[in-house]
Structures are given as structure tokens and as C-alpha cells.
């Protein structure tokens, strides 16, 4: 096996870190072997860079000059009070909680008697279980496979309906920057229904946290999963997340993704319809200012007929911020009656921001309805004048128009309480801009 020469300082640091800490990573000898193989795969590819088509607009090799030391085995002294503070509005929602701090499950901060048996990947690996590697050629997934320390395993029995959402929290703490690799799994048996809210936060003083997490989703036939991905790690953080989802027949998967003010975020999702007559909705908001960079990349694979997919992403950019939306929809030859729609809309509050949108339709079936669109707009001065002529001051009028712009995406959230909570986060972010 030939291993390419590691080129950047960051890649070098990753290799050194892995070599020195591999023995402390959880798992059996079989797992250790898989980790080494995953690391080798990562090293062959290196950090994704702009000549890798899927990473054209988000060049990690250029952006990640420094890699933080890997947060393996670090004990956290995060208090409940500090966590509450970091969670903001999410602290008060009625949910079962699984809290991971710097890449490790912290039972003391988590719910003691959850509605279902919740496992952690750490437990599984610690008790001799193995972790099947994800089959993907994504370098960042390989890196996760090498470094993964822990994660939530949410396995919901067929027919079960959860009465409360499950809140999965990944918190970064400490003045020392750290790199974390979590891998979560959500599995819904046939007919099961659940809401899982994934919140990523960095505590005050957590500098330049770097996370590279993986989430596997599989929904059984007639199952219904509502998933939220909330990225609130702040302007110094790097957040890389890969979702790999498989949807059974007659199932519904809704995923709402809110990324607010994250230094560098890449949320990529690979979703495959494995059963007929299922529905997928992946929507969200990307809010960025300063030099922040948020990338949402989706690959929706209609492998079977009669499925419906919807994507609506709304982006608000200010200063020199940049956002990327890449949406690929594949309709396989058998996937007749596919109904796929995709829309990306950006609102630019400054002339120096940038929005890159790349829709891609790969359609091999003939009886399908597929569409995509992208718009980039500024605040409409005629609307501004109308509102101001009604006595509404400029800042307030602008905020109203931006809120109405993001509202279209937030309306995708069925649960009124959660919709209001997320709207509040968006409003807070918006009001910070034009103080």
C-alpha cells in the first residue's frame, strides 16, 4: 500500500496525534485495525480541497491551517449551570438529554431515566462491541472512523412513538482548542416515530473548537423521524458533519438544519430512498457574517419509485461572509414518479458577501417531476419605503423583512414551540448585526 506524502501541517498534526493516542482510543483489536485502515484512507486523500469537486467552494486544506489536539480521554468539569447557559433556549425544552462534552458522554449531565434505552458508542466499544465502518470515500468520514470516541445510539423499537424529543448535545469546553469526532446512530424500527434534536455548542472560552461528526440515520418502513441539526459553536469554530441516511418504505424523514454564526461549517448529507412512497424534507437556515463560511451539501438518491424530496435553504449573509449550497438529486432508472424539488435563496446584506449555489440533477428515469432554483436578492428598497412610510424605523423595517425572508424556511417546522425557539435564535442573530 502506498501512502501519499502528507502535505500540510494540519495533516501532519493529525497523523502524529493519531499515532500517539491510538492506543487510548476505545475498542478491541478489531476496532483498532479498522481505525488504522480508516486513517490510512484519510491520509491517501488528505483534507478535502478545492480540486475535489464536492469541496470546490469549501477548501478545508486551505482553511484548516491548524489542527487542534485531539480531545481523547479528556475529563470535563462542565457544570450543569454552564451547560444551561450555553444551551440557551434549548435548556428549557422538555426532552431526554444525552450530553457529550469534548467528545465524551457525560452521564451526570444527561437524563437518568430516559423513555428508551439509550446507549453510547463508548459503552459499546468499551464492552468489546465493534463498529462497522461507513462505506464512503469521503475523507472526513474516514477521519471520523479513525478518531471516533463516542456517540449516541438511539435505537427505537418498531411501533414505538416517543412522547418527548431526544436532545443530543455536543459541547466544546476549555480554553485549549480541541478536535472531536463523534458518531451518532438513529435507528427507527417499522412504524416508530421520534424527534431528535442535535445541538452543537461551544462554551464561553472554548477557543477554536473543531468537530468532525458523523450521523447515521435509518428509518424503517412507515417510520417517522423529525431531526434537527443546530450549529451554534460560534465564529471561532470549525464544524464538519456528515449525515448518511437510508429511508424505508412509506416513511418520512424531516431534517431541519440551522447554522448560525459558525466560523467554518460544512453540513453534508447523503440520503437514499430504499423504499417506495417515502417523503424527505431537508430544509434550513444559514446565517453568517464577518468572515464566517457555511456550506450545505446534499446528495439525495432516489433509488426507488414514488418518493418525494423537498429542500429549502435560506441564507442571510453580511460583511464578507460566504455560504455554499450544493444540492444533487439523483433519480435512478427505476425511480419513476419521483417528485423532487429544491430551492436555495440568499439575502445579501452587504456587497462583499458571496453565495455559491450548485444544483445538480442527474435524472435517469423519464416519468418524474424535478425542479430546482436559486435566487440571490438584496433587501427590496420599495418594501423598505412602504414599511417606513408607516412609521416603522429603518432598523426595525429591515429586521422585519429579514425575518420574513427566513420565515419561509422556519415554517417547515411543524412543532410550534420548536419553530418559535428557532425563530428566536434567528432573531437574536439578526438583531446583533445592526445594533
Amino acid at each position: 500500500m502506498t501512502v501519499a506524502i502528507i502535505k500540510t501541517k494540519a495533516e501532519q498534526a493529525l497523523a502524529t496525534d493519531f499515532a500517539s493516542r491510538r492506543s487510548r482510543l476505545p475498542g478491541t483489536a478489531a476496532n483498532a485495525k479498522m481505525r488504522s485502515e480508516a486513517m490510512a484512507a484519510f491520509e491517501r486523500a488528505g483534507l478535502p480541497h478545492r480540486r475535489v469537486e464536492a469541496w470546490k467552494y469549501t477548501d478545508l486544506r486551505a482553511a484548516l491551517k491548524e489542527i487542534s489536539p485531539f480531545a481523547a480521554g479528556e475529563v470535563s468539569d462542565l457544570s450543569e449551570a454552564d451547560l444551561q447557559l450555553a444551551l440557551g433556549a434549548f435548556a428549557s425544552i422538555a426532552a431526554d438529554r444525552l450530553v457529550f462534552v469534548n467528545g465524551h458522554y457525560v452521564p451526570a449531565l444527561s437524563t437518568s431515566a430516559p423513555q428508551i434505552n439509550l446507549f453510547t458508542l463508548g459503552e459499546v466499544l468499551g464492552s468489546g462491541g465493534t463498529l462497522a465502518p461507513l462505506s464512503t470515500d469521503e475523507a472526513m468520514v474516514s477521519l471520523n472512523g479513525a478518531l471516533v470516541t463516542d456517540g449516541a445510539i438511539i435505537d427505537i423499537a418498531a411501533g414505538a412513538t416517543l412522547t418527548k424529543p431526544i436532545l443530543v448535545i455536543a459541547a466544546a469546553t476549555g480554553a485549549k482548542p480541541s478536535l472531536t469526532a463523534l458518531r451518532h446512530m438513529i435507528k427507527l424500527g417499522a412504524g416508530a416515530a421520534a424527534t431528535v434534536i442535535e445541538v452543537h455548542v461551544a462554551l464561553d472560552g472554548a477557543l477554536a473548537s473543531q468537530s468532525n461528526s458523523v450521523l447515521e440515520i435509518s428509518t424503517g418502513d412507515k417510520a417517522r423521524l423529525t431531526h434537527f441539526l443546530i450549529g451554534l459553536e460560534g465564529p471561532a469554530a470549525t464544524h464538519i458533519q456528515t449525515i448518511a441516511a437510508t429511508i424505508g418504505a412509506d416513511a418520512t424523514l424531516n431534517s431541519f438544519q440551522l447554522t448560525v454564526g459558525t466560523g467554518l461549517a460544512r453540513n453534508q448529507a447523503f440520503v437514499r430512498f430504499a423504499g417506495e412512497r417515502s417523503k424527505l424534507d431537508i430544509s434550513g437556515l444559514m446565517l453568517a457574517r464577518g468572515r464566517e463560511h457555511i456550506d450545505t451539501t446534499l446528495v439525495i438518491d432516489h433509488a426507488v419509485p414514488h418518493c418525494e424530496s423537498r429542500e429549502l435553504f435560506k441564507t442571510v449573509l453580511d460583511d464578507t461572509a460566504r455560504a455554499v449550497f450544493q444540492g444533487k438529486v439523483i433519480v435512478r432508472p427505476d425511480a419513476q414518479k419521483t417528485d423532487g424539488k429544491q430551492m436555495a435563496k440568499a439575502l445579501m446584506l452587504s456587497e462583499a458577501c458571496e453565495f455559491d449555489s450548485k444544483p445538480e440533477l442527474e435524472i435517469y428515469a423519464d416519468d418524474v417531476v424535478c425542479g430546482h432554483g436559486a435566487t440571490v436578492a438584496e433587501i427590496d428598497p420599495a418594501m423598505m419605503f412602504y414599511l417606513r412610510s408607516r412609521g416603522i424605523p429603518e432598523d426595525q423595517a429591515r429586521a422585519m423583512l429579514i425575518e420574513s425572508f427566513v420565515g419561509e424556511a422556519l415554517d417547515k417546522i411543524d412543532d410550534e414551540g420548536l419553530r418559535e425557539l428557532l425563530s428566536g435564535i434567528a432573531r437574536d442573530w439578526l438583531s446583533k448585526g445592526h445594533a
Partner: protein
Amino acid sequence: MLEIKNLHAKIAENGTEILKGITLTVPKGEVHAIMGPNGSGKSTLAYVLAGRSDYEVTSGDILWNGESILELSPDERAAAGVFLAFQYPMEIPGVSTMTFLRTSVNATRKKRGQKEYSTPEFMKIARAAALHLGVKDDMLKRALNVGFSGGEKKRMEVLQMALLEPTLCVLDETDSGLDIDAIKIVSEGANKLRGPDKAMLVITHYQRLLNYITPDKVHVLAHGRIHKTGGKELALELEKTGYAEFTGKAA
């Protein structure tokens, strides 16, 4: 009293002059009508009164209650009592009509030094005013003007006018698109706003409206200037003769 003094205004973007020296005085307690051919500058005048930045005033002045309002922003003018009922009201997707109305009224009240309404208080007031103007309850819940019919949009303008309690009302073709019943309701509303400390400019193409809102004076605006001023009988006369007299070469 509204005093427009030799007002010149151009389109900011390309410099085209639209208002070419308008002089007009509306004393308090009076209603004046402005009529004139399409494209003569009536809406431009209305926009300039309300402070739209697409137009640049190059000379002249606008005084309301003796003070120039040219330096005031549109929201400051609203607080000072200026209200423009738009010829083409804007659709604002994603902003509920009720939220908009409350924000507008409370922002204005705040600037006028009046107490802001609580949400329940305001909802009561807005519902009562809406009922009176034949604005359906469900319209208050919908996004502002989005999908409203032409007449519904105009009624919404009049509802806003009633709630904002302006002292200087500019109605830009508010009657266009309204059915006969609505014209009566709107006129009734406008007549109610007539008062000793109020002034009103009514832009219209139809003499009919003036049967309901009797103007003290009628002005003919053509090519960016006031060409003729008369009493309410001038409107009747124009109905017969049209604007041929004014649409030739600018005098």
C-alpha cells in the same frame, strides 16, 4: 397647512426631472383633489411628500405646519402626521398583517410620545376598525397584502390610515379598484378624518369619488406642473373635455 413651494424633483437614478416647479397650498380643514393625465407626475408628487429616496428634490420646499419636512425620513414624516395611501400597495410576504399594523402603530405612537398599545389592546382596536371598513378578519392573519385582491389592498390602505391617525393624508388613486360600496365606505372614512387641524390631497382619475369627498379645490397636474386650479366643478368639466388642453406641448 401644507405648503408646496416651487418643488422640483428628479429621478435619483437617471436624473430625469419629473416635478417641474409645483406650487400648491392646502390649508387645514381642506380637501384638495389632484387630477391629471397618466404619467404627469401625480404619484411622484405623493412619493416625494412621503419621502421616497428614489426621487431627489432639486429645489423648492415642502412645509407641513410651517416646518420643512424635506430632511425628515419617511418614518419621521409618518410620526409628523403624513400618510400616503399607495396607488400600488406593496406585498410583504412573511409578515402578518396584524403584526405589521401593530408594529406600525406602536412605532408611530412611540415617536409621538403616546403610550404604546399592548397586543390584546391593539387587536381589539384593529379588529373594530377592520370590521368598520369591511376588512375580513382572516386578512389580518395573512401576510400583508399577499394575494389580496386590488380592492382588498385599497381597503387595507384605508385601514392603516384610520389606525395611524394622520393629519396630512395623501390618497393616490385609492378609489381605483374599489367597488361602489367600498368607495362609499372609504369616502366615509376619509370624511371622518376631515377636521380643522387636518389636510387631505386626493389623487383620482374619476369625478365620482369627488361626489363623496367634496373637494375644496381641484388642481390639474400635467407635465410635472399644476396647470389649472378650480372648484369642484372643474372635475365635472374635465370629465367632458378630457386632458387635450393640457397634453399638448407643455405650456
